[in-house]
């Protein structure tokens, strides 16, 4: 392994061989209709050309929306408001419980009200640069433009955003930017947005425009004549598996970070809906792009079920450091100033503690690997509020971060007002997802995707507070334009019949899939496989990767998958509430997903954003992108022979010229 590489690396033969056995290279694909319209006006122009469905015809269309997180609830409510028949699905018992509820820090908007230099263009620049030039530029423009309406709308439907004393909306800053554009509600931004969105959804349920199916899990996608025609779902209480047909299907089913088992996501978040659509022909884009959040709580016990995230907003006032001497076990408060290394402030003077997540995570990992990690397992760094409390007083800190501090105390038994917090990188956000075009449509006509389940906005690294935004924008202000545009051409055609052969076939497949899992009759429950898969991925496809590790990772995933399919035990019956069965199905998909992630990471022979290949770094340890060879999004198709086909969407950067990311 060389530290600084010059020119393109020649792939070692063993890796190339492994890759060739797993994938072929397919054609280039286009994500948007080519046009001369400048990126900044692309969305306005696109909206102008969207076909419309007249109000009287809307109720002739049925749209299935899977997921009631911010993206799904918004989309279902907005389409319901417009007059479409909406069938909404969630495996939760109530829409409010979707994982979006857990987001803490805030939501970005390019309102540019302050005189700190913010603007739409600046938002786009930060977003594209933050994503290390692996996002679709026009999507970032749309995100910026609609962000303004998102704040107004969410405020109007009940999200109590923080306000200044004068009564105006308050903002704060987040990692990767130097302006203050993050709107927040204490440390509960996701909760307040999600509760407001689910209330709006329930309003439509009361009106009869949305039919809500709770505790119902999508198991498969129905495709008829090459179009998405419905879904197969399992009622989690009765176990009944049924088909639901529609003119269009929207997947807003969230991210797949839970593949790592210990992640910051809610325990039930999974990849099943997206992956089963992928099996039916939807391309999966950039699966290797996983963000590791730099301010997670370190793992402290084997049975820990997840890593808890401390909001990144803490980095506004907290200072990150490690003792200069490796293995220093002194009480942090007794370590004098000159023996502390505030390594982010030292290495990145311009951004300091507010460097983007991938940079901060990698820097923390470097310190830990070098033996300067702190805590009982030496797997953490300090996040210290001593100076902020000294400067602003405890009351201000309490108001800003009170509930986060409580959460920390609760999880660790330590008081962060007195002892510095311990934090570490943890698997967090999936920048990859089902490939979709500019209209949020996947490679299967009629199948749309929104929120974290999609891929477009964030590139190789999501800036903090841009994800709640993308989920809200998709749900409320993108899909309600794009889905009707697709439906307009279907006027007069009924939704697929429930007795169509494709429907019956998909039902059989789903029932067969459940039987296949229960029939194994092995000795280990699904969680055991999931935990092992997670450890394996942290090791082989984690904060930093290299070809050898990844190749080994693929082989280990394959071996684990084989063991799963021969030794899984699914306790209990299939015709009732059975959480083991739910987990088994999800882990089965994660095993395939993990293989695809490692494959994508091995294939992408460059470093970009959160995808850090140690073979590709600058002499100072920064990620080294290869725009000549890799300036595209990978979109993976499953071939009939079980091999993958990699399609490429070339990425254009016009308004933000390609440059080396630099946060110094």
């Amino acid at each position, binding site marked *: 392994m060389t530290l600084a590489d010059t020119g393109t690396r020649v792939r070692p033969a063993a890796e190339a061989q492994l890759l060739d056995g797993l994938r072929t290279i397919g054609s280039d694909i286009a994500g948007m209709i080519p046009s001369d319209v400048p990126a900044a006006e692309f969305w306005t122009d696109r909206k102008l050309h969207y076909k419309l469905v007249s109000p009287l015809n809307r109720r002739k269309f049925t749209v299935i929306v899977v997921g009631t997180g911010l993206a799904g609830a918004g989309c279902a409510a907005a389409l319901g408001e417009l007059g479409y028949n909406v069938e909404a699905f969630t495996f939760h018992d109530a829409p409010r419980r979707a994982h979006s509820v857990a987001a803490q820090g805030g939501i970005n908007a390019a309102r540019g009200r302050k005189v700190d230099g913010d603007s739409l263009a600046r938002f786009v620049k930060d977003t594209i640069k933050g994503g290390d030039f692996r996002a679709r530029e026009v999507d970032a423009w749309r995100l910026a433009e609609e962000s303004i309406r998102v704040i*107004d709308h969410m405020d109007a439907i009940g999200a109590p955003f923080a306000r200044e004393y004068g009564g105006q909306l308050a903002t704060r800053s987040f990692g990767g930017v130097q302006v203050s554009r993050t709107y927040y509600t204490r440390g509960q931004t996701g909760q307040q947005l999600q509760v407001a969105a689910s209330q709006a959804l329930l309003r439509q349920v009361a009106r009869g425009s949305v039919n809500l199916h709770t505790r119902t899990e999508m198991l498969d996608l129905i495709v008829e004549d090459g179009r998405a025609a419905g879904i197969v779902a399992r009622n989690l209480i009765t176990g009944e598996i049924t088909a639901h047909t529609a003119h269009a299907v929207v997947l807003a089913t969230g991210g797949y970070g839970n593949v790592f088992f210990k992640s910051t996501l809610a325990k039930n978040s999974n990849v099943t809906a997206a992956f089963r659509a992928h099996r039916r022909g939807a391309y999966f884009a950039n699966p290797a792009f996983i963000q590791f959040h730099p301010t997670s709580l370190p793992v402290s016990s084997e049975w820990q079920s997840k890593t808890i995230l401390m909001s990144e907003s803490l980095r506004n006032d907290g200072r990150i450091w490690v003792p200069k001497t490796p293995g220093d076990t002194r009480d942090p408060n007794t370590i004098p100033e000159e023996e502390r290394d505030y390594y982010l402030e030292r290495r990145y003077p311009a951004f300091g503690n507010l460097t983007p997540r991938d940079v901060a995570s990698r820097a923390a990992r470097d310190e830990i690997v070098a033996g300067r990690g702190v805590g009982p397992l030496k797997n953490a760094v300090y996040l210290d509020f001593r100076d902020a409390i000294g400067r602003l007083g405890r009351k201000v800190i309490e108001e800003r971060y009170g509930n986060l501090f409580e959460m920390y105390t*609760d999880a660790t038994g330590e008081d962060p007002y007195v002892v510095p917090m311990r934090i570490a990188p943890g698997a967090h956000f999936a920048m990859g997802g089902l490939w979709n075009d500019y209209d949020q449509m996947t490679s299967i006509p009629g199948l749309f995707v929104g929120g974290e389940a999609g891929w477009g906005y964030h590139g190789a690294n999501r800036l903090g507070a841009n994800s709640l935004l993308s989920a809200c924008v998709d749900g409320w202000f993108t899909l309600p334009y794009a889905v009707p545009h697709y439906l307009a051409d279907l006027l007069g055609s009924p939704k697929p019949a429930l007795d169509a052969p494709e429907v019956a076939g998909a039902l059989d497949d789903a029932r067969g899939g459940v039987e296949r899992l229960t029939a194994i009759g092995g000795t280990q429950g699904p969680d055991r496989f999931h935990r092992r898969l997670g450890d394996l991925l942290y090791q082989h496809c984690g904060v930093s990767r290299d070809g050898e590790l990844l190749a080994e990772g693929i082989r280990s995933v394959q071996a684990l998958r084989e063991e799963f399919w021969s030794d899984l035990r699914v306790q209990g019956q299939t015709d009732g509430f059975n959480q083991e069965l739910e987990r088994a199905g999800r882990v089965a998909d994660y095993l395939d997903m993990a293989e695809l992630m490692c494959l994508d990471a091995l294939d992408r022979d460059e470093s970009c954003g959160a995808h850090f290949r140690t073979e590709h770094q600058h002499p100072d340890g920064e990620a080294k992108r290869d725009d000549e060879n890799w300036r595209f999004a990978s979109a993976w198709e499953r071939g009939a022979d079980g091999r993958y086909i990699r399609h490429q969407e070339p990425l254009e950067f016009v308004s933000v010229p390609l440059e080396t990311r630099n946060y110094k």
Partner: protein
Amino acid sequence: MKLTLQIWRQDSAASEGHYEDYLLVGAGPEFTLLEALDKLNDQLVSEGKEPVAFDSDCREGICGSCGITVDGRPHGPVEKTPSCRQHLRSFADGSTVRLEPFRNGSYRVVRDLAVDRSGLDRIIKAGGYASIDAGTAPDADAHHLTHEKAEYALDMAACIGCGACVAACPNGSANLYVGAKLLHLATMPSTKAERSTRAKEMVRVAEEEFGPCSLYGECVDVCPAGIPITAIAGVNREKLRQVLRGMAD
């Protein structure tokens, strides 16, 4: 640590339930209650026995999915803390801990410790929202909401919908939950317009689904969101206001 977990087992809403004792060994005081159940389930599955069903998701105290009754107390021994943030350090090594579902006439058992709390959503469906369509909202900076009022709205909006208040109440009343939502929305400028109809409808449905409030106050001790007892007074205030005004807002 070594604990005896006495757990309520029930196959479905239709079947009868009973307690069963399980010995949990090798857990640490840093385990959450739910991680203890994970470990027990791993043990049960490896012995070919049925694991214990229970709801949870975020495991951070924010989604409201989790909720079990621990030694007779919703969520567990530590006040104002959801089940997923209760730790084994609260129990003495070697002790017996009784785990049962949230008990309430309006919560049906789904299986073992998981219950059906959809009644809470039916209350929201009755009017706990703002009738504002996407794209029609005014500029959020055009109306002022003082810092104090925004903070107050947020205090009331903090409810995570876990339903422990109902389970703790001897009457099974949902008034803490209802009051919090009414006061939250009554404080926000754009959601004020439907204040009276909202109060009328939400209270009507709450009375149909859940019991009356006799101000026992036990709800407040278990509420993980720290919703204050004044929220209960909000129910009567908003209802009275609706009666006196006799108008929509």
